[in-house]
């Protein structure tokens, strides 16, 4: 008895320390990569200049202008998008106990792009604030169809079934948005959303999405304990007194908001929500109170680095960031699908 208690004690102290180290380390890495991202690019800028641009801004200097008006919003946008996708992926994986859950793979991103295409076609002058709402709606549409098909299935929602349904829904919504783009001749406006691109991000966008982001992340944090319980299985969670219905509903809303936000900024980028939670789990275990903050930081880190790579691999061209992350994500997905054996 005594021994067991001691063991518990040890675990209790070890995990937070490890968690804190990993979170701090991640934050430092993120900071470093943010600075790198600001200074590297089509025009290299010294870190010193970056520093000055922040603290001694001189509006007459072109470099300061580039930093303030182009690089900053873009890189912050990348970080935000990364966090959004990663946290939505983590919530989905925990809630549905599906290791292959990702907003891109399960049709949310395609749904958001579809609604954005509709926006462009039917209300071309809609302000960004309202477009985000459409993006949420689209993400909800994609998720709704996928889960609807899954739950109508004879064998219920197996991970493989969800991914297949997600692929089909993505194909459908993708074809529809492409059709709309062709019909209304708005292909140019939409093109970057298929491939994914952050270059268009402005301070205005960031201002609008930040309150949504903070709200969603805060709610995600408060849900984290219940998600941990849900990830043990619905029955266990009910047995431990979780109000599963309410938790699932709230989590679904948060997932849709996060995915919708991210897509409205960067377009349909898949695999961030798949990769990051898995990596974070390897390091930090299965407690979502740690996983959620972990995915916020490491999701941001991944996308900031990917965006940096997209800019510097073959200048002056920019690689579409979605394609770049997919090249990383596909092998990871194949590995998970293979390893999953019984589960997948």
């Amino acid at each position, binding site marked *: 008895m005594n021994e067991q208690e001691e063991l518990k004690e040890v675990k209790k102290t070890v995990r937070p320390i490890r968690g804190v180290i990993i979170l701090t380390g991640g934050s430092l890495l993120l900071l470093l990569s943010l600075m790198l991202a600001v200074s590297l690019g089509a025009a290299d800028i010294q870190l010193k200049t970056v520093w000055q641009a922040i603290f001694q801004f001189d509006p007459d200097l072109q470099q300061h202008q580039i930093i303030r008006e182009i690089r900053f919003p873009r890189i912050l946008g990348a970080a935000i998008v990364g966090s959004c996708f990663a946290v939505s992926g983590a919530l989905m994986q925990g809630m549905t106990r599906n290791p292959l859950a990702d907003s891109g793979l399960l049709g949310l991103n395609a749904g958001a792009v579809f609604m954005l295409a509709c926006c462009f076609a039917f209300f071309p002058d809609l302000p960004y604030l309202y477009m985000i709402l459409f993006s949420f709606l689209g993400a909800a549409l994609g998720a709704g169809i996928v889960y609807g098909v899954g739950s109508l*299935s004879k064998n219920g929602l197996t991970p493989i079934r969800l991914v297949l349904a997600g692929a*089909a829904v993505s194909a459908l919504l993708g074809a529809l948005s492409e059709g709309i783009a062709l019909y209304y001749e708005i292909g140019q406006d939409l093109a970057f959303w298929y491939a994914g691109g952050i270059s268009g991000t402005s301070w205005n966008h960031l201002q609008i999405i930040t309150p949504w982001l903070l709200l969603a992340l805060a709610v995600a944090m408060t849900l984290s304990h219940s998600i941990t319980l849900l990830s043990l299985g619905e029955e266990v969670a009910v047995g431990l007194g979780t109000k599963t219905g309410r938790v699932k509903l709230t989590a679904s809303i948060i997932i849709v908001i996060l995915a919708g936000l991210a897509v409205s900024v960067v377009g349909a980028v898949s695999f961030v929500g798949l990769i990051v939670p898995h990596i974070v789990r390897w390091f930090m275990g299965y407690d979502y109170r740690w996983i959620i903050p972990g995915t916020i930081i490491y999701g941001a880190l991944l996308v900031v680095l990917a965006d940096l790579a997209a800019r510097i691999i073959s200048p002056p061209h920019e690689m579409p960031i979605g394609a770049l992350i997919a090249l990383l994500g596909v092998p990871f997905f194949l590995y998970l699908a293979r390893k999953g054996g019984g589960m997948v």
Partner: protein
Amino acid sequence: MRAEKYKQHSQKGKAKRAVLVSVTLVFLIIIIFFISLNTGSIYLTPAEVILTLFGQGTEQQNLILFDFRLPRMVIALLVGTGLAISGAVLQGIVRNPLADPGIIGINAGAGLSVMLFLSFFAVTTTISIILMPFLAFLGAAGAAFIIYVLSYKRSEGITPMRLVLTGIAVAAGINALMIVLTLRLNPETYQFLATWLAGSIWGSDWQFVLALLPWLVILIPFVYSKAMVLNILHLGEETSIGLGANLEKERRVLLASAVGLAAASVSVSGGIGFIGLIAPHLTRQLVGDKYEYVIPVSGLVGALLLLLADMIGRFIKQPEVPAGIIVAVIGAPYFLYLLARLKD
């Protein structure tokens, strides 16, 4: 004795039904063919069409009909046939009703090699047009090989579900790679490629008919001669061994034929998915599961579907909404429906 008569009768009944269905399909194809000949930016009356077909047309009518519309529709017929039969064969080999050359990555493989080719050579020379199906075949075979290896597990061989899942992932990876590679292309080739990927029947030229035709003329009779083998393979691995089928050899030969059919079709039509999925399914509903009937009838169904999709695409908007988009909009919900019904 009476029972025997009844049996003989019923077997003949099935054959009769297959013939009836085929005749109806041919009839429908002819009707759609004529309607389709009249669809386009310049309207020709049915009488004018018939007159022109018999050599009584004006120069302009000849041009429209023989140089633009006819080759395009012949290609639609051939591609539809090729993709549908390829899908029917694939479904028999992997025993998975969800198998489709588009879904499991064969189209993507063909696309990649065609793209690499296009980025170095011009499309317009006859030699390169004849070469394209071969290149597409190599790319598709490569993709099929990768998918096969990746979904193979020593302990359980290839499970149909994992095959489809791997195919989707590999297709996503190849598509990402293509997007990255398009950066190298000049805008003109890029535009061409984008349309090609969306699945437009772009090869509106008799040369493309010539490039595609030999593949179909050789492979379809060959596949048909293997109908009995496909019947046996459809019963499952162990049963086919018990019945004395040389499993590995037959599978390899049939897979190569299916890949060849799909690749040659795709090289002319671009990324058209779902025909290979829908056509065999509809066919099975109409004439049952025997491959002696499934192969020819699904070829007809595929031809009809694609002809229809191409016509609808041109009808909705001039010059066209690519047929691939129309097919996806019809095909993806069908895929979802099948997925929901499937037992695993």
